[in-house]
């Protein structure tokens, strides 16, 4: 339902603009600060206007190591991207298959499996990090992409969401498909997957950001600079040799760290709309 009253319109817009400004302010500050020199930052207080350096800090960071970070930032971004994509795609794949099994197959201990998966919701990485580290180390996967991705790849949340979605589908859909000669694999590929498109797009965005923002696990699993991720390196950058952290570079790296998640959201948003338009009418 929509109210049509001009006074209300103005009020809601004021509230929305204030909200947007509050969210935008830190980002704006980082963006502005990244174009100032360090002395100008240290002397001038908050940098609300563009400085003199333009894109110089971005070029510097992307092409050469800086501060406590031993590789150029493009390398960090690549590592982060591989890890985030691996986690997002892996989580989607595993959880949709798990939900498929739980909802559409009658096997022994089906509910036990479901509850086991469900219980792991209460065990985030931080809780199980010591044993996880032990296992990954024993497998020789420290400082490798699989080592970064695998421990984070199972998702009870996504499994649960897919399960709920599958349960809303009329059971006759499966029966019609069975009569039409579709086996389990075809039913999954031809009917469940296309119907789950929009759900998958939404979950992909959430899971990508989750993977991109991982801090603690890469800190442990990627001691080698070649596998360091962007988010975990932000802090290393500020370990300064001469006592003054290079804030101008830190804010630059922060802005760089923002770009891929924003890009994913913008891209996927178009996909959502397309999915909605396709399936809803």
């Amino acid at each position, binding site marked *: 339902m929509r109210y049509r009253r001009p006074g209300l319109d103005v009020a809601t817009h004021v509230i929305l603009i204030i909200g947007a400004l509050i969210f935008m302010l830190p980002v704006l500050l980082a963006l502005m600060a990244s174009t100032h020199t360090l002395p100008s930052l240290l002397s001038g207080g908050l940098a609300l206007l563009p400085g003199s350096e333009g894109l110089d800090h971005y070029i510097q960071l992307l092409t050469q190591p800086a501060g406590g970070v031993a590789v150029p930032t493009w390398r960090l971004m690549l590592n982060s991207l591989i890890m985030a994509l691996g986690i997002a795609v892996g989580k989607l794949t595993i959880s949709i298959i798990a939900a498929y099994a739980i909802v559409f197959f009658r096997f022994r201990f089906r509910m036990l499996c479901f509850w086991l998966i469900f219980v792991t919701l209460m065990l985030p990485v931080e809780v199980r990090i010591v044993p996880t580290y032990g296992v990954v180390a024993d497998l020789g996967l420290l400082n490798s992409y699989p080592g970064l991705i695998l421990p984070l790849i199972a998702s009870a949340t996504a499994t649960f969401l897919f399960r709920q979605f599958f349960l809303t589908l009329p059971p*006759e859909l499966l*029966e*019609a*498909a069975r009569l*039409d000669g579709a086996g389990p694999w075809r039913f999954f590929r*031809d*009917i469940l997957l296309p119907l789950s498109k929009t759900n998958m797009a939404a979950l992909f965005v959430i899971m990508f950001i989750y993977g991109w923002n991982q801090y603690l696990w890469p800190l442990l699993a990627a001691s080698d600079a070649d596998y360091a991720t962007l988010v975990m390196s932000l802090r290393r950058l500020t370990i300064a040799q001469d006592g003054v952290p290079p804030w101008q570079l830190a804010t630059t790296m922060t802005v760089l760290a923002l770009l891929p998640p924003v890009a994913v959201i913008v891209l996927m948003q178009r996909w959502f709309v397309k999915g909605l338009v396709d*399936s809803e009418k």
Partner: protein
Amino acid sequence: MSTLTLERLNKTYGGNVQAVRGVDLDIADGELIVVVGPSGCGKSTLLRLIAGLEEISDGELCIDGQRVNDSEPAGRDIAMVFQNYALYPHMSVYDNMAYSLKNRRTPKEEIRRRVTETARLLAIDDLLERRPRQLSGGQRQRVAMGRAVVRQPKVFLFDEPLSNLDASLRVQMRQEIRRLQKRLGVTSVYVTHDQVEAMTLADRLVVMNGGRIEQIGTPMTLFNQPATRFVAGFIGSPAMNFIDLAHAEQTPWLPASTPGGALTAGIRPEHLQLVTAGSGDLPGRIEMVEPLGSESLVHVRLGEHDPLLVVRLSGDELPAAEQPTGVAINGPVHLFDSDGRRLP
């Protein structure tokens, strides 16, 4: 071209819910069998047993004399039309109809030919590019039919396919299904809880109650010689009147050969007539008159505790309510024993 044989078919859910009990049924090639019964009597379950969507607990199911108890649904070559149609929402009408053919690796050209042919037969050929969501209820129903027809299966199963349509569309689709089934000559089992639909469609009618078959026969056999009190009450609208003879005082209208005991007499509303008070077979009082246009239903109270008797009159007779009246019987009286079985 197929026959279907059900022998002592049983289905028990979870060890104690007996949904289908000892069903015997022989269905001839090209026959349209309508299964009718109240909600929960096991009609859908029976259909799902035939389709292979449920496992048969006991008994035997044969198609063309071949036992198929253990075949997968796809292997039985049966098509089913569901109550909610169960169209694939993300596929176009064309793809919905083509899906089963694709799964059987039918050549593309053949698929195209059969889908367009079937679409023309069902008058949905201008909807082929649409999604199910873009169709009206009646159009979806046609697509669901098309999806079944295009396969040229051995058997059609229909599970209350018209119950989501409005009344006028239902009548139209009913006739169309009948015509289509005769034209294609495919053996069919059609489930409904609507006895008018059942009567108009069926070659033979199967009345089910509590998982059992009460009677099998042509619609007119079931109407004229109901084997049980249940069938008598279920077939025909408005329903047959029942008079409990154990409590009736005088019954000179019964044949002299009627045995004693706790019997029930059944008389159809159209076999009753209103006559002036004091004459006729049963004295009563008009309690309510329902004019329906082409006919009127008059509810007559016989005794204080007796149920109302429904008398069906032609439309131009409109007696006043709250009047004493006589009721005359001018048709057959059906007699049922205390177990509900018909006396010969």
